[in-house]
Every structure is written in structure tokens, then in C-alpha cells.
């Protein structure tokens, strides 16, 4: 169980904004010092507000952009130094499903063409590819009569199934799902979530699920990573992170997350004030200190390092010199 599929060590991805000829160049630290390991066969949820660098992290993982510092290690292979052949193999092993399926499927391609395309690109004969496409469509519980449909003829839930089928067709080991259900209605969301879990269990897949919906994360993932302004602030087993969050930001996020039971509404909760802030104008020290109720002088001047407490990883001064057993209150 404990084989790392994806390893990141102090990964950084900076973007440079050139504001003009004479202006100073700005550095946007979209992903800053992220250390994270994803093990084989686990579902990791990645949460954070918009602009926290979730999608940039996914793009770096997918090797769609190169990291500024450090590397992505996938199955023991360093992607920055990988050979062409290794990259090609990597492309079959990692698949991605994006948020809005309607804009990711070619409107002029039939379902069949969309699904067989990756197979043909990787050298499978057309006839075999078609058989494989039918097989995959059955896996995602779609009727094969939709094979010759175009995307505009399908509903949102059906399109998401097609997107999942297209991702699955190369038999990947890792799937990155960027907001897989946020464009869908509740009943369809339930169908897609169930489907994703069934597929994961059947093929022992590894998922990285990016979402802002904590209820979805709680349902689907084994571990949760929380990002805030480019930093990974907390990473640990889902139950611990949701029920006993360590980082003040995670606490605020949990309090803000909509309850799904009206009987809980009178429970006292602390609502985080202020805006998420922007990556262009980063606060000094700990990025969270302007919104943090526990902020001290030190937080303003110094950025906390990642503390590793048993299975839990947290970036906050509060937990220095503590073992996880002492933190549980």
C-alpha cells in the first residue's frame, strides 16, 4: 500500500509577470514549497479557495508546465530528466478529467472519435480501438447507442462520463480529477462520485481530486491536502483533517463549508473574515496571518516550515515542539 506514486519535494512553480518596459517584474508564486506524497491506490483530495494554486499544481504534476525548482517524481522517474520514451509512457499512465466536460470535448467529434483518439495516437489499430472504446463506455455505464452522438446531444452528466471514459481508455494508473462534479446537479453528482469510487476500487487506481466542496472530499478521499496561496498548509488522513483540523485556515474552511443538516445550524462557528488575498501581493511571513485569529508577531515576520506529526503534515508555528498525540484536544 505504501508505494509512493507521486513524490514532490519542495516543489515550486513561479510565474513572472512583465508589467511593462520600465516596471519591475513581478513574481507570482503559484506553487511554493509543496512537499507531498501520493501513495498507490489512494484517493487524495486537494482543497483550497480559488487562486490557491490547486490547478497549477495539477498542471505541474501532469508535466504540462515545468516546475521552477525541484521535480515531480512519478513512479521513481524524475519527470524533468525523463527520456522521450519515458514521457510517452508517463502520458499513458496519468490521465486527467477537467471541470467542464462540454469545453473539453471536441464539438465536431463523435463520442467514438473522442474515445478512440488516444488509443490510435498510441499506436493501436482502429478496429481494436473501437472494441476497446465500447468496452470502456460500458465501464462508465453509458449505453453504446451514444457512440455516434456529438457532445451537444448529451447532458452534463453524460459528457462527464465520456470524459472519464476517454481518460480511462489508456488504462492509466493515476487520474487527476479537476473539479469533477462542480458543474453537475446533486443527483448526477452522486452518480459520478459513485462511478469514480467503483472504478478506483476495480482497477486499484490512484486519484488526485481537486475540489472546493468539502462534503465531496469527505465522501471520496482517503487523505486531504489543503492549499492556501500557493502553500500546502495541511495534509493528513481525511477523518483527522475534517474532524480535527490543525491549521487555523483549515479550521476556518471547515466552519465555512455548508452544513448538510439543518439541526447543525445553531452550532457556534467562527467565520473567517477577509478575502483569500492574491498571489501577486503576498503577505509577509505566514501567508495566512492577516486572516488568522491566532497570529503572533512571529507569524508576520517568519514563514512556518512544514511540520510532520506522524501521519499529519501541517505548516503552523502553533504545533512546533508537539507530537500529534498532544495536539488532539
Amino acid at each position, binding site marked *: 500500500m505504501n508505494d509512493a506514486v507521486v513524490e514532490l519535494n519542495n516543489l515550486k512553480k513561479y510565474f513572472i509577470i512583465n508589467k511593462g518596459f520600465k516596471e519591475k517584474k513581478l513574481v507570482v508564486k503559484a506553487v511554493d514549497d509543496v512537499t507531498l506524497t501520493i501513495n498507490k491506490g489512494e484517493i487524495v483530495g486537494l482543497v483550497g479557495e480559488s487562486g490557491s494554486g490547486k490547478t497549477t499544481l495539477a498542471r505541474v504534476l501532469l508535466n504540462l508546465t515545468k516546475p521552477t525548482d525541484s521535480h515531480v517524481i512519478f513512479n521513481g522517474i524524475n519527470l524533468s530528466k525523463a527520456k522521450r520514451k519515458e514521457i510517452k509512457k508517463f502520458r499513458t499512465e496519468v490521465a486527467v478529467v477537467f471541470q467542464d466536460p462540454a469545453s473539453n470535448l471536441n464539438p465536431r467529434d463523435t463520442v467514438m472519435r473522442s474515445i478512440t483518439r488516444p488509443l490510435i495516437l498510441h499506436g493501436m489499430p482502429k478496429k481494436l480501438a473501437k472494441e476497446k472504446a465500447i468496452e470502456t463506455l460500458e465501464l462508465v455505464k453509458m449505453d453504446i447507442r451514444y457512440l455516434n452522438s456529438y457532445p451537444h446531444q448529451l447532458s452534463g452528466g453524460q459528457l462527464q462520463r465520456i470524459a472519464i471514459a476517454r481518460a480511462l481508455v489508456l488504462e492509466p494508473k493515476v487520474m487527476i480529477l479537476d473539479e469533477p462534479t462542480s458543474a453537475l446537479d446533486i*443527483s448526477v453528482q452522486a452518480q459520478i462520485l*459513485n462511478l469514480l469510487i467503483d472504478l478506483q476500487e476495480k482497477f486499484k487506481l490512484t486519484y488526485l481530486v481537486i475540489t472546493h466542496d468539502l462534503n465531496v472530499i469527505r*465522501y471520496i478521499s482517503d487523505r486531504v491536502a489543503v492549499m492556501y496561496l500557493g502553500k500546502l498548509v495541511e495534509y493528513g488522513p481525511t*477523518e483527522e483533517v475534517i474532524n480535527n483540523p490543525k491549521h487555523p485556515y483549515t479550521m476556518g474552511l471547515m466552519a465555512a463549508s455548508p*452544513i*448538510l*443538516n439543518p439541526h447543525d445550524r445553531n452550532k457556534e462557528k467562527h*467565520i473567517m473574515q477577509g*478575502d*483569500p488575498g492574491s498571489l501577486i501581493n503576498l503577505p509577509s511571513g505566514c501567508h495566512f496571518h492577516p486572516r488568522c485569529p491566532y497570529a503572533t508577531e512571529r507569524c508576520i515576520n517568519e514563514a512556518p516550515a512544514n511540520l510532520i506529526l506522524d501521519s499529519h503534515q501541517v505548516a503552523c508555528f502553533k504545533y512546533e515542539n508537539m507530537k500529534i498525540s498532544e495536539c488532539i484536544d
Partner: protein
Amino acid sequence: MSEELLRLKNLYVDYKVKDGYLSAVKNVSFTIEKGEIYAIVGESGCGKSTIAHTILRLLPDHNEIIKGNIFFNGEDINKFTEKQLESIRGKEIGMIFQNPLDSLNPVYTTGFQVAEGIMLDNVTKEEAWNRVIKLYNDVKMSDAEKRAESFPHELSGGMRQRVMIAMMLARTPKLLIADEPTTALDVTIEAQILNIIKKLRDDFGTSVMLITHNFGLVAEVADRVAVMYAGEVVEQGTVYDIFDNPKHPYTKLLIKALPRITKTEGRLQTIDGTVPRLTEIIPGCRFENRCPYAMDICKEKDPEIKTVNKFHSYRCHLHEGGEI
């Protein structure tokens, strides 16, 4: 409490489409009382926004047939002339939309746009501007003076929605229609906006009609809820009735489809099938093709409304004999 503000009675809205009519809202009746938060939930295409637009007559002209009554403060505003309705829009009934960027003019400062509404009531410019700053403080906008001079593109999504709320508040309407007010926002900002809406109700006694697809919001703030499916209100009741004791099969399934568990505890409930085409005439229940309890009668006869208690009612053939 218990004073009626808005009452819809047998409202029907049909859209004219290429080959006939699409029945977007069918026989909808409900009452919103003073000072309550009434939520309308349903999946996309169920007609919840159509209702909101019908109340304020914002639907595109000559494209629909509206039948039924909309009583606001005892008067049927559906029979009002355009001019009479003008006096209600904004002043008596305010509305905020999903995407504030679509509702704000990009070439004017936000403060000016809010002041514009205030000046409709014959207020001087200076006074209007002072009111804008006060309103910005009311909606917890940090740095109110500076923000009033900002253009919409200079503000974040949460701040833009605050501008919309300030604009709506400017004329202290009795009813606020909020159409998916937080869908485009982050959860932390969503919680802040919800708090503002709650505070509005508590401080000014404003009634709120909250239109959403998010059951989380409903559980968080609503007093009473109407669940819509394919143009019909299938069930309505207090928020506790709907969450603890749903009666209609659709509500039952939907509540079970919410991700409230973890995957080790089991799978989520799903609802198979799709919404029927509303351009076709459906003589029976509109949920019949997806309902696990469907009977023969469901296909033929439109179910009648059954009442459980004063607030709680639903539309289903079941229960005639016994429990589900």
C-alpha cells in the same frame, strides 16, 4: 410573523418554442411571509429562476404565456401595467443574481451605480454618496470609501456581490429575491454573504426568496423550503420537514444523494433516468419515469396536493393507502 407578503396562486409559465410550448412552470402556489427566508431548491432546468423572473416580469417579451396570480402585499402584480410594476421593481422587491459582473456596468464606478438607485427617490448627490458609504459599511465592505470609487473589474467576486446587495438594500425593499447568490464564490466568502443576508432579515425584517441548487445553503439559512422538479413544486415544508421527514419520492432520493457520508459507509443514492421533455404534454406525474415507486395511476393522473401539517405538503399518488 405569519403575515403574508408574497403569494403565488396557480402560476403557469409556458415558453413558446419552435414546435409548440414548453411548460416551464406548472401550477405553482406558495406563500412567503414577512421576515422569513424561503428557499426554492431544484436541479438545473426545474423552473426556479423562471419563477423569480416572472415575479418581476423580467422575461423576454412575447415569448411566454403567464397564467395565475402573483399577490404582493395583497395586490395582484401580474395584472399591473408596466408603469405600476416599475414602482415595485427595486423599491419593493429587490433582486440579486448569480454573476454580479453581468449585472454591473463596467464603465461606471460601483459607488455611482449604487447612488443612481438612491437618487431615484429625489435625494441629492451628496446625500446619496453618503448613503452609499453607509451601505458599503453595512455589507462589511472593507475600505468603503475607496471601494465606492472602484470600477467593477477592480473588485473581487465577493466584493462585487456585496455591491449588488448594497444596491438592492439602497431602497430597502420588503422582499429580496436572491437567485443563486453565492454559486460563483468560494466557501469562505459564501459564508460571509449568507451572514449578511441573515442579518438583513434580522435587522430590517426583509423577506428573502433564496433560489439555489445547493442544499447546504438551504440547511444553513432557510426557514421554509419548496422543492421543485420539472416545473412543479413537488414538496414544501419547513426546513426540518424537508430534511428529516421528506414525503415525495424525489425529495427522499435527493436528500439521500447528498454527500453526507464517507465512502466506507456506503454509496450515495442516485436517481436514474432524466427529466422528461417539457414540450410534450404529460398527463400524469412528471417524476413518474424516474420514480422507484411508480404505479399505473402515476402515468395517467396528475397527483393532487396532500397536506401533512400547516406547512408541509407534497404532490404524489402514494400514501393514498399507506406509507411508502
